[in-house]
């Protein structure tokens, strides 16, 4: 059984075909890259998988369960995690609290329990704080634990966001351009972090990324989108030498012969 199975997915917004019959599968423990020129539909793809956009046609399955058309909260409960292109750390909370929020689905205290501070609720809070601390330590960010989310740099916020997503123990995580705005050293750190996440935690990753070095290093396979359609799929080296892919990025008038010199 595949971790993620996308079949003939089409998404139409008011006359625009954002995605056309996209199909691909992701096995458990793979790291898949999704690349393509701007406007190719990559973010729409992630949005549709995570339930924020509605599919017009096609099916999506997560670890065997059908998730097409389900609400984002249900899909999250089934084991999907997601990070966003623009940092979505909640400015009104500290970094640690942000990560604790990632445990929302794994904590149970009701409003009543919280208002009356039952023993169960307090124990749950302590446990959540401990887990959140560990998650921050895992990504090397624990020294910012009590700072408000906004005090961190953009790159640091992205990393914390990954911790916040991981703490919910998802099976599959969708990452939208995790490396954007990161310096070279940080990209290398991110590279290592992504591998550790896959190797140590067994999480499957699907990431949109433009930073070629990262894609080549970390991804097992790459899916290429252009104008909403999948135009190539395969190992990173294969895909980046594929003529169609190059044409998509650089324009169809590009001379193949020139490229190989």
């Amino acid at each position, binding site marked *: 059984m595949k971790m993620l199975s996308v079949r003939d997915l089409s998404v139409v917004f008011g006359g625009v075909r954002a995605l056309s019959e996209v199909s691909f599968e992701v096995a458990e423990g793979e790291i898949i890259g999704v690349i393509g020129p701007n406007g190719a539909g990559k973010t729409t793809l992630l949005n549709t998988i*995570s339930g924020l956009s509605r599919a017009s046609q096609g099916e999506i399955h997560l670890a065997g369960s059908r998730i097409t058309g389900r609400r984002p909260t249900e899909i999250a409960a089934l084991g999907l995690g997601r990070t966003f292109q623009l940092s979505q750390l909640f400015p009104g909370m*500290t970094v*640690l609290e942000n990560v604790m929020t990632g445990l929302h689905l794994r904590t149970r205290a009701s409003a009543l329990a*919280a*208002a009356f501070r039952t023993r169960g609720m*307090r124990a749950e809070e302590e446990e959540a*704080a401990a887990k959140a601390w560990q998650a921050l*330590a895992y990504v090397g960010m624990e020294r910012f634990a009590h700072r408000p989310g906004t005090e961190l740099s953009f790159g640091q916020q992205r990393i914390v966001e990954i911790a916040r997503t991981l703490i919910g123990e998802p099976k599959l995580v969708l990452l939208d351009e995790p490396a954007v705005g990161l310096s070279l050293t940080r990209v290398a750190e991110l590279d290592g972090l992504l591998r550790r996440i896959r190797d140590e935690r067994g999480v499957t990753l699907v990431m949109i990324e433009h930073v070629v070095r990262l894609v080549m290093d970390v991804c097992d396979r790459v899916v290429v989108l252009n104008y909403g359609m999948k135009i190539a799929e395969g190992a990173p080296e294969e895909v980046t030498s594929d003529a169609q892919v190059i044409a998509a990025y650089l324009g169809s008038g590009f001379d193949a012969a020139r490229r190989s010199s």
Partner: protein
Amino acid sequence: MRLAFGSRQFLALLFLGLALLPWVANPYILYVSNLAMLYIILALGLNMLVGYAGQFALANAAMFGIGAYGTGLLEVRLGLPYLLAAPGGAVLAMLIGTAITFPALRLSGIYLALSTLAFAMFSQWVLLHWYSVTYGGGGFRVPHLDLSPLPIGPDLGIYYLSWAVTIVLVVLAWALVRSRIGRAFVAIRDGEVAAQSLGIDLLRYKALAFALSGFYAGAAGALYTPLLGYISPEGFDLFQMIIQKSMIVVGGMGSILGSVIGATVMVAVLELLREFKSTQEIVFGSILIAFVLFRPRGIVTLLRRLPGWEEPLSSFDRRRYVVTAPSSPAAATGLARAAAEPTRGEGR
């Protein structure tokens, strides 16, 4: 252990002062303090909805009115004793407040504000015109508060009842926001989309926020009824709405302490200007503009930095997670692991 003067101590002192007030104050001051406590309740409920959960709804004054009318009508038309009618009024306001959630889900920002405002105006119209039930514009009297067998008269009775209820509601709100509920609210306010991806059910938490603000406003209304002895649609109009909004803007949105501070300050201003309605309007309007322009996060931001005055959205023993400056990344991880282990023999 150092006794720091933090927000808890401040609140304790405030309520202690309020408890002792009847011994030294004249009836007018008592009345105003009682009113202040009711406004604290109103500000708390509104803040949870607007400040924490980010739902900019303008129907709170209507909920206040529904609570007051509900209580009064249950007493007068159905003959219920006050101690049954009051919860009834509060629950009625809560139910109606929750019912607003469903349309509110699709709207946000200005649309939410104006549609809830339209609803509030509609409610006021109902209170004004449904003579057969609400006695219309003339209003109606309610019986004096009878707390027998307790040996306490109606004036002191309502004062201490309000005092007790206010304390309970402050403590409950305080606890509620320091939990995953508080975090869920703020997550919805700060990033609805990310909140959903973390599994936070928007409908459920928005409904909770509306229900809470409805209940709090209704409770304030229920306490207002015996205080005035008389209910009419006047006190639940647009001006009331502005007063409440000003309280949380001035005090601080997204802050329990801010709600308390804002309520007390605004009630003081309101009473000082009681004589002149037009001056009231000008002053309130100007205060609102001034704060929105210059100090949108409210008075409480001046206090928040001080130790003991923070308002976290979590409840755990902070001493377990002390952050020290690392000399190297490896050391950082090592330190973190050490810090993360529970320290021995520490109480809470």
